[in-house]
């Protein structure tokens, strides 16, 4: 038993933290909040240069083939920002989906350019009848002589606006199961629109008689659901690590504020009502951290056949998503007025905790999956 990071992971963590301080300070993130994509070309290039987009891409496709825990250590630091931009969408979920579902040719076609940030993938799965289960995809792909025609709407697509390739989930006629299509975002008929509101970089994608060739199908038509679930299993704990980083940052800033904010002649942290919030936040944070890293450990140590791994992943996602949300709520209770001033920085997290709340399944969704994996 050893719950510490390896020396190499400590190095990754320090490097990531330094990068965040240098390139993605609060002021920069506040500026990026106003952009459609959540990143600047300069930031994207620098992050690509240090290998952040290729961590989960195997070496043979131009990545570094890091372990999930290695990647999670970096994502935790990104989440502390919270760093916006399609890092997770492309470098984790996109890459893993192509790796799990794609043919060898497709891996060679997409992964090297994803690994260096030249191409940006985003998963377009959810629709107006929102959900993450196998029945939530109903958009049709109509076969033609040399390919398919896609028509329909994808909704709440993360990083839709910055994607160069939209991995689009459809029902292809003649195939029972789900099919994934690699759709170039510039294809005529594809249009993306950013959604406004208390969420960041989530969009609507409409497909108006979009023609794609037969080789746009990722893997085999009708058989994408299982590989996509395998990609989810690996991607979810990394998203959790990002949320752990966010929760840690929220905890740190709240603790610091409670030490320095004076009211009634005392730092407010001396008041037990305030302490209650801080204790709640660190309980959520630590629960999120250890459920997440245990799931990562199970995945990395190849416990995929172990009966506990699926449950661990659902547990991590349910606990961590809920934890980040509640950490932000607690932080607002402690910060009161200053917490809602945008330049203070807390609201970056608050909005991110909401944006990620339903992504890849909300806590209720994962609790229901746990009821299945625990075999009641």
């Amino acid at each position, binding site marked *: *038993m050893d719950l510490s990071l390896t020396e190499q992971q400590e190095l990754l963590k320090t490097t990531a933290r330094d990068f965040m301080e240098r390139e993605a300070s609060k002021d920069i993130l506040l500026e990026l909040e106003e952009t459609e994509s959540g990143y600047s070309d300069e930031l994207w290039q620098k992050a690509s240069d240090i290998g952040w987009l290729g961590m989960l891409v195997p070496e043979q496709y131009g990545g570094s083939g890091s372990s999930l825990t290695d990647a999670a250590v970096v994502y935790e630091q990104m989440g502390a920002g919270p760093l916006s931009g399609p890092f997770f969408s492309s470098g984790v979920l996109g890459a893993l989906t192509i790796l799990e579902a794609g043919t060898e040719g497709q891996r060679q076609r997409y992964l090297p350019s994803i690994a260096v940030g030249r191409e940006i993938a985003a998963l377009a799965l959810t629709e107006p009848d929102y959900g993450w289960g196998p029945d939530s995809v109903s958009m049709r792909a109509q076969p033609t002589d040399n390919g398919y025609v896609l028509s329909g709407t994808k909704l709440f697509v993360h990083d839709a606006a910055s994607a160069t390739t939209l991995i689009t989930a459809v029902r292809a006629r003649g195939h029972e199961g789900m099919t994934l299509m690699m759709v170039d975002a510039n294809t005529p008929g594809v249009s993306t629109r950013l959604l406004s509101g208390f969420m960041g970089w989530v969009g609507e994608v409409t497909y108006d008689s979009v023609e794609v060739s037969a080789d746009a199908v990722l893997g085999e038509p009708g058989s994408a659901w299982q590989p996509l679930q395998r990609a989810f299993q690996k991607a979810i704990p990394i998203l959790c690590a990002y949320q752990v980083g966010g929760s840690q940052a929220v905890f740190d800033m709240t603790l610091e504020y409670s030490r320095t904010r004076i009211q009634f002649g005392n730092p407010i942290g001396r008041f037990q009502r305030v*302490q209650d919030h*801080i204790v709640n936040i660190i309980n959520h944070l630590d*629960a999120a951290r250890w459920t997440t890293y245990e799931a990562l450990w199970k995945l990395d140590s190849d416990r995929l056949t172990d009966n506990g791994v699926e449950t661990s992943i659902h*547990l991590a996602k*349910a606990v961590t998503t809920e934890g980040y949300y509640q950490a932000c709520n607690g932080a607002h209770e402690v910060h009161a007025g200053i917490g809602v001033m945008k330049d203070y920085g807390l609201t970056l997290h608050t909005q991110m905790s909401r944006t990620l709340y339903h992504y890849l399944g909300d806590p209720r969704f994962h609790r229901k999956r746990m*009821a299945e994996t625990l075999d009641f």
Partner: protein
Amino acid sequence: MDFEPRYTEEQQTFRTEVRDWLKDNVPDDLANPADSADTTYDDYLQYRALGRDLGEKGWLWPTAPTEYGGGGLTIDHAIVLDEELDEYSLSLPPYYDSGGRLGGASILVWGDDDQKERFLPPIFKGEVRTWQLLTEPNAGSDLAGVQISAVRDGDDYVINGQKIFVGSSHGAEQYWTITCTDPDGDRHQNLSWFIVPAETPGLTVVPMDLLIAGGEGGAGTGHKNTIFFDNVRVPASNLIGGENNGWQVATTHLELEHGSGGTIRRNRLVDRLFDYARELKRDGQPISKDPEVQELLVDVFVEAEISRLFGLRNYWMRHAHQKLAHEGPQSSYYRKTSGLRMGEAILKILGPYALTDDPKWDKSDSHMEVFQRSSIVALHPGGTAEIQKVIMSRRLGIGRQVREQAGRLA
């Protein structure tokens, strides 16, 4: 990271040795009731005998130093012992005892050489069992406000007063206690910590009538007691850590009691609950198939998993000599409060079955009914849930002007 113990060849050899020994030495008819108050005196004597046998092999307190009667073994050995005893639903020690885990730890840190030689070997070998005498009628959460007085008289101290919520059924050979030696002295600098032999004249033990006796971790405690001190004479050589230094001595065992010891054990209650829910029927199908029941079962599972991970983290931190801060009281706080929430969920899941230990209708060997009571009682021992939050805040540096450090551990 690695979340489970890795077993070396040496450990597996040790495991075989332990397994064989336990097979030969754990009495077949040793009862292990859900409510430890149901443990008979005969069974208690068997537990004690098993403790002495384990002590002789150095397995009762495996990581305690050999020079004081401990096993001198590594944490790897302790893990194996713990796992193998768990197979018998036993723990180390196999009965309630505050000597090795708490008092012994304080003596190791604060006792002088003579005291270590006198007091530790009987504890670590299981020759004595030791109770802690801390709480008083007017000193619960505010332990530093204890009023029981110890007055120096020649080579002795004379102790007068009362302690409550002490020990368990069937007595002990030795107590340790914290007393006030300077009623006018500054807070935290007026207390003294003593070892008191149980047969000293002037001590009266009266059982308390409680909802259930329950403690944190380890073997069940049976019932709790009130102990009256009436001019109890204790030799000054039994004063540990020096006069008016008792609070410092106490911080060591309080730290351990506040959850810093950690645990690698799973909560078997969850498995029992799942089995029960698969067995009970409503509307012609197992209640575990009801989606609302499933939601509650998952709630229980999530709480138990978080509790397990906090305990596991603390276990690792302690044995890897990581610096602890809020983690001990956090684990304790979470276990206490989640226990109450789990109790509520179980009540909703099982209905009135959660409340009966009737041997005809209860199918959990009393475990569910006992948990309904013990989860309430568990809120106070070792510091209430609220006190755990107070300590967490101090450790995080917001409770007081100066951030509080964790108590010193050996």
